[in-house]
């Protein structure tokens, strides 16, 4: 797979995000090495989605800095759009464009943003659809696809920009249980291909098997992080223990 080449490390320094008086992120430091897969778990409201959304500036951080490789995306004079296109994002609600077919969803950004010739974008898009197992759905509307299929198209759409890093924001949380597997399979394949990934998830099985490092967040802070087997089996912090006791 071609996505394993090229740089792709992300670093977050002292990230703080406040919504009014509500401090959702209270100073997060996180460095993700190239090719590393980091899973972020934690109770709802712990700030894990906000962390991901701050990483590509869908939410503007209150303070702190975000780097992709050595380029600071939070710098005042940064070319936000260009830096953002180096990070693919997959959303809980898929957010496919409903007025476009599956293949159009995938080709629109390369054509509009990167000025890739339409034919090339289409060929690459079909290749991506094949990779997520949906080649025959190319000309379908998102509405006629199942949730799992929609999410796989959304992953292909993000990959079409050839990102260096992929961010997954609870990518399987809105899916029926029997549809989760296909999406996780695509994510697992990506991880094995060497893609740098930050995955916010409730899928403990996926976290255990696929990720290199597990981060547990609570109350806007990283409480604990380490090898997934260690964190899941022998959590050191009391808050982690309590959370895991509930979900495992």
């Amino acid at each position: 797979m071609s996505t394993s080449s090229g740089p792709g490390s992300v670093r977050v320094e002292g990230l703080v995000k406040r919504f009014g008086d509500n401090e959702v992120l209270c100073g997060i430091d996180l460095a993700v090495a190239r090719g590393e897969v980091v899973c972020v778990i934690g109770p709802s409201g712990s700030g894990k989605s906000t962390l991901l959304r701050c990483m590509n500036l869908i939410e503007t951080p209150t303070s702190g800095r975000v780097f992709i490789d050595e380029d600071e995306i939070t710098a005042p004079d940064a070319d936000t759009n260009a830096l953002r296109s180096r990070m693919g994002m997959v959303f809980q609600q898929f957010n496919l464009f409903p007025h476009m077919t599956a293949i159009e969803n995938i080709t629109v950004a390369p054509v509009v943003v990167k000025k890739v010739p339409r034919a090339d974008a289409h060929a690459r898009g079909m290749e991506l659809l094949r990779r997520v197992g949906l080649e025959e759905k190319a000309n379908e509307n998102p509405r006629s696809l199942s949730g799992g299929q929609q999410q796989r198209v959304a992953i292909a759409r993000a990959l079409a920009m050839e990102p260096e890093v992929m961010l997954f924001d609870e990518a399987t949380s809105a899916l029926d249980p029997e549809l989760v597997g296909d999406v996780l399979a695509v994510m697992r394949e990506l991880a094995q291909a060497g893609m740098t990934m930050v995955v916010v998830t409730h899928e403990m099985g996926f976290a255990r098997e696929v990720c290199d490092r597990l981060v547990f967040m609570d109350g806007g802070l990283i409480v604990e992080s380490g090898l997934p087997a260690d964190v899941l089996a022998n959590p050191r912090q009391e808050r982690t223990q309590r959370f895991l006791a509930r979900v495992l």
Partner: protein
Amino acid sequence: MGTIKDLFFSWDAVRPVLGDLLRGFWVTIQLTLLSLLFAGTGALVLAVFRQTRTARPSLLKRAGTCVMRVLAIVYIDVFRGLPALLVIIMLYVSLPFTGIPVFKDFTGFQVAVLGLTLVYMAYLAEIFRAGIEAVERGQVEAARSLGMSNLQSLRKVVLPQAVRRVIPPLLNEIIILSKDTSLAGVIVVGEVVYVARTSQAVTLNSTSLTGAAVLFLVVTLPLIRIVDRYIERDRRRRGGGRVVIR
């Protein structure tokens, strides 16, 4: 009964003015389409200005979008609150004395298009705004996360969906606009109502007015049916219910 038939439905009375009526109706159609084109384009821009917010820390950019938004709001509010007839008359009687190049030499027809455009821009902007507001936030987030600029995501993602959602109210507004073109008659533009009224004044027979009415219905009735069908399709797609009275 005989009188009414002679007064409103006399073929002999309308035959000599039929050509004039059709020519007048062509003017009506031109007024409608040109005003629609200009007002529609302007309204999209207005609606976007009205909805623009920036999260950029730059104070200058923030001030810029704020000024744009306030100007758009003021424009929309003022022109929604004014009768189109008043606007058209004001333009007609004052433009020649303003000395503004091009505008001062406007014909009655051009003044009418300008007046209708100014007013309908405000109406249509409100419709587009509703459409823009109905597009989920996640759509913009997805577009921006793919590296699209604000303008690119607006053009490729937000506006196509926004316009699609407001087609029924948009068509309604087009129907109203086509009828409001008759206001241009006040400034002696030879649209169909003006022509029909003039001929009625000469012949003292109202059939020419009936003719104008028929010509309008030929265009507006299909549009009305289309709106209904759209609404019905929308209702079915959303699974909405009918009102059943037992």
